[in-house]
């Protein structure tokens, strides 16, 4: 279950809102950070911490696609293949990730280091092709550059 410090963190989030229900989304993020994804245990822990029905917690968690709904690698690559990025070669990057790391859409590398999610536009069209690595932004990508960048994430 959640550690004392994490529970305290959730308590603090709760205090910001008039009702516990309002704290559900941020609390789910905290749990995701701790458990790595929205596992049954993570959602149970949140339900307990906020005293909400488990069904409701799960319903809310599954409504949002940006929560992680299966175990993920240590680092999350979110690569855009929408129009601008596609025209400027994003598909080649997808092939590269597959050949070099064995990464496919929604997949994770065998060593658990990276997971890949293919995105619809991350708002970086001026620097296409672009990606998010965890919360860091990278643009003007080439195969070479992406290889270098990934090397920096162990």
């Amino acid at each position, binding site marked *: 279950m959640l550690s004392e410090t994490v529970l305290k963190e959730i308590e603090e989030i709760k205090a910001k809102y008039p009702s516990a229900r309002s704290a559900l989304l941020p609390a789910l993020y905290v749990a995701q950070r701790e458990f790595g994804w929205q596992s*049954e245990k993570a*959602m149970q822990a949140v*339900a307990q911490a906020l005293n909400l*029905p*488990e*069904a*409701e*917690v*799960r*319903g809310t968690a*599954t*409504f*949002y*696609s940006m929560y992680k709904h299966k175990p993920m690698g240590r680092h999350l690559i979110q690569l855009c293949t929408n129009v601008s990025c596609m025209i400027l070669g994003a598909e080649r990057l997808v092939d590269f990730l597959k050949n070099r790391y064995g990464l496919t859409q929604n997949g994770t590398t065998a060593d658990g280091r990276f997971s890949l999610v293919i995105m619809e536009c991350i708002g970086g069209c001026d620097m296409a092709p672009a990606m998010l690595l965890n919360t860091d932004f990278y643009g003007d990508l080439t195969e070479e550059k992406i290889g270098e960048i990934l090397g920096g994430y162990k």
Partner: protein
Amino acid sequence: MANMVKLKIDGKEINAQEGMTLIDAAELGGIHIPNLCYIKGMKGIGACRLCMVDIEGSKTPMIACTTKVKEGMNVNTQSERVRENRKFVIDLILSMHPLDCMTCTKAGVCNLQNYAYDFEIKDSTFTRKKFGFAIDEGNPFVKRDPDYCVLCARCVRVCKEQGTNVLEFLGRGVGSKVATANDKPLEESGCTFCGSCIDACPVNAILEGERWRRGREWDYTKIKSVCLNCGNGCDIDVSTKDGEVVKINAGAEKGSAERYICAIGRYGFDSVISDARITYPLKRVGNALKEVSWDEALKIAAEKLKSAGKDTGFISTANILNQDAFIFGKLASEAVKTKNVDATVSLYADEDSMKYSDSADMDEADVFVVAGLNPSQWERVTPALDAVIRKRIQRGAKLITINADDTRLASAANVSIKGDEAAALGQIAKALIAKGAKAPKEMEGALQAVNASEDAEKAAAMLTEAKSPVIFTAPSLFNASKNISLLINTKVVAVPFEANARGVVAMGLITEGKTYKEMVNGGVKALYTVGEIPLSARPKGVDFLIVQNSHMTELARQADLVLPSAMPLESEGTIINYLGKVKQAAKTVEPFGESRQHKDIFTAISKEMGSPIKESKVKAAEAKAKPKFSPFEKKQGLDINPLEFTESINRSVIYSSRLLWLKEREKAAV
């Protein structure tokens, strides 16, 4: 009275209450606005977009389930535009709905089918989608087939409103489905099998278990009646086919918070036709019970009662009807001439608490006090009280709980006081007086040394502001609770554990001779028991035991004479439920085998004894007690285990119906 608003719907003048939605206002004028997600009595969510109407002056169509009436509004529910819109919605829904109407159990009462018919849609114009979700049917009560679901959220909302919180949407968009917390089967999700979700579902996605091929709505005869299995006495709608009960649904008016029944009320009817039913009168011959004719049985009964005379004891449960109770009392007092006649009520309630309880309206009440009671949907102890209060809280009412122990209901309360109940009531009284309530002198005196706790202050503030407060109290705390009504205008209701406790007391089944407890402890020579009394061993000292019940019980096996009686679903009469409402029980099916309604058996015996009782119209005497102060104390000797008691008076119903499945699961879990 709320302000009235005049408006026009489809050219019809309608007077509606201010704050009403268009969908409800239209209904007043007999106009149906198509809908899928609307639930009468609950706040609209505007999810299905089927209820769109045109309002003069508005550019776009509006949602009738959330739009409130306004003076002078001119509404068109049938414009070309809204009809096209609705047709589009149904077309979309049909693209992901199996077109199974020919074998679907819900045919005839399915909203989707009706609307598709209205809009002449044979098949969707969109590409057909099929999800192939797993069916949840591991329990015999509720079958969920998500492939039929139209995602209206009715089931989710009713389950949430009553506080069971089992269902929720999983995912988003067309691919989402209704599921339990971890997509586990209902039996692993804290479901109480009340079936509220069945009553709510507009299509075939949630249905009673074991309904398949047991007829469709148009095959059924519908009869309104009342459930007698616990202290709540809920309204039920009974469906019968070929003289058998096929299903039972909640029967309270649509929109009322009282529209709820529990699993016992919904599925207990299985026990109407069962091997455990007593089909013929039986008499003891040596070690065995032998079938006899009614004539012979009545003769034996008459003879034995006559010879035991005033040493006879009569005991009954309080889930018999007023008419039965009335004649039972007469049989004892006029034909047998004994004062020993008592009901199981005396185990948990005194006469005053049943006689002088107020009548209350759940939908009107805005503050509830629950003192010394632990109603629970999960344990099925007066579950409707628990569910209805929780629903009322969701609709804006407040709750104060007072209990010496932890209760699950306390977590839903605005103020929960844990501790001695009588003392807490005293503290609330004290706080009310401090707020200016006028108290009789004795009360002021009695409360002199009392200090109100912070919670008692809060409760008092809530009660002072309330328009129609109701105090639900354990009978043992009735007098203490009644004191509050000397200070403020509040209803006080003692809650019994049997459906017709108030009626049975009003009919005079209160002993002037030996009490129930004394009689079952060997105080009488002949004993006549009526209904499933919570007793499994023949009392010592009883020379002749008559057991009158619908099912074979431990006690009946030890009887000298067994008289088969009709079940409540086979009997006609009235009850007075815990809220003081007189409710009609209907004979939904003919009595099983040779069984007869209680009162008919009593009348026949009295005839046989030569002092026939005339059936007269029963009328409960209007009881009004003079308000007077009594000490803030708990009455002793009225403690029973509510769970054990409720299960014991329903033993035959539980053990000869699918409710047995619950018992077996409980056993397996231990």
